[in-house]
């Protein structure tokens, strides 16, 4: 078999906005998955509110928690968008772009809101 290289340089191939939404959907899912033990640990600390407050006093912990909430919010909204599409709606390119923009704006706003609540 002759050498047959495949061109697949992702930095040189343009994707529509829905491509970015999909990539971020996966990344946010992975972030949330790996951060989940921290959430469980904090949940376990809930009855001991002093220890939880001490933990949350560390800005790095707070920041990680905020990152996880943001990842979850994005993953959830993009997932809802995906489910709506699975029900047979939203299959014009322009509408897919609009719903993608909506998901991005809503997640940024909700992440900011979560930040305000945390700090």
């Amino acid at each position, binding site marked *: 078999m*002759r*050498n*047959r*290289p*495949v*061109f*697949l*340089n992702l930095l*040189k*191939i*343009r*994707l*529509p906005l*829905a*491509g970015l939404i*999909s990539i971020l959907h996966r990344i946010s899912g992975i972030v949330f998955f790996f951060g989940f033990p921290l959430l469980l640990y904090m949940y376990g600390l809930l009855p001991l509110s002093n220890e939880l407050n001490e933990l949350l006093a560390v800005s790095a912990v707070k920041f990680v928690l905020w990152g996880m909430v943001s990842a979850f919010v994005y993953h959830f909204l993009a997932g809802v968008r*995906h489910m709506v*599409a*699975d029900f*047979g709606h939203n*299959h*014009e*390119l322009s509408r*897919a772009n609009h719903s993608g923009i909506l998901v991005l704006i809503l997640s940024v706003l909700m992440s900011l809101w979560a930040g305000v609540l945390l700090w």
Partner: protein
Amino acid sequence: MQINIQRFDPDKDENPYMKTYTVDTSAFHGVMLLDALEYIKTALDDSLAIRRSCGGGVCGSDGMNVNGKNGLACQTLLKELPEKVTIYPMPGMPVIRDLVVDMSQFYQHYDSVEPYLQSDTSDLEAEQLQSEEDRAKLDGLYECIMCGCCTSACPSSWWNPDKFVGPQGLLTAARFVLDSRDDKRDERLENLSDKYRLYRCRGIFNCTNVCPKGLNPTAAIAELRVQQSEGYNEL
């Protein structure tokens, strides 16, 4: 105009490399990118390998990746391109030489959806009539020219090239599932019911974004899913 093209000759080159051609667009007739590539081949460098046939967006031979987006060279207006153009072969497909890719896998997926009318009931000796409404269901599906731009632009096809049928094959599947003269709707849907063949689509829309015929494979894929959710008629 500066045209950068990825070159690769399996007899000479270990790896693909970029080659730049400076093209005077007044030196040849024609207004399409294909005309510029023909000019390069005849006047500047006859070793360049491209596929082309009709030159009118019907045969689907000259699919390539132009400035990051798949398209047909014969349907790409030079005046709509920037001064610097970068051309790669279609992504995700093995390069035979220069801009010529091996589309075997693409054709295998097309073959796997049995892209022909199958009727148990019709009199095959006579014309098979269809109402105007039924005929209209095929609009946006039957026009595909199989250039491969969509499947080659699809991330789901890149990561699962052998398992996911890809936008072109699924568009064709929808074309026959929705055809009132076809009697194999259930079998066709069953043929797409595993985890990968239909459901690997993640709604990225690059197929629709690049289709030179303005078709919407994502909508066809959604329609197939809706048809599946409505259940089988007989099975």
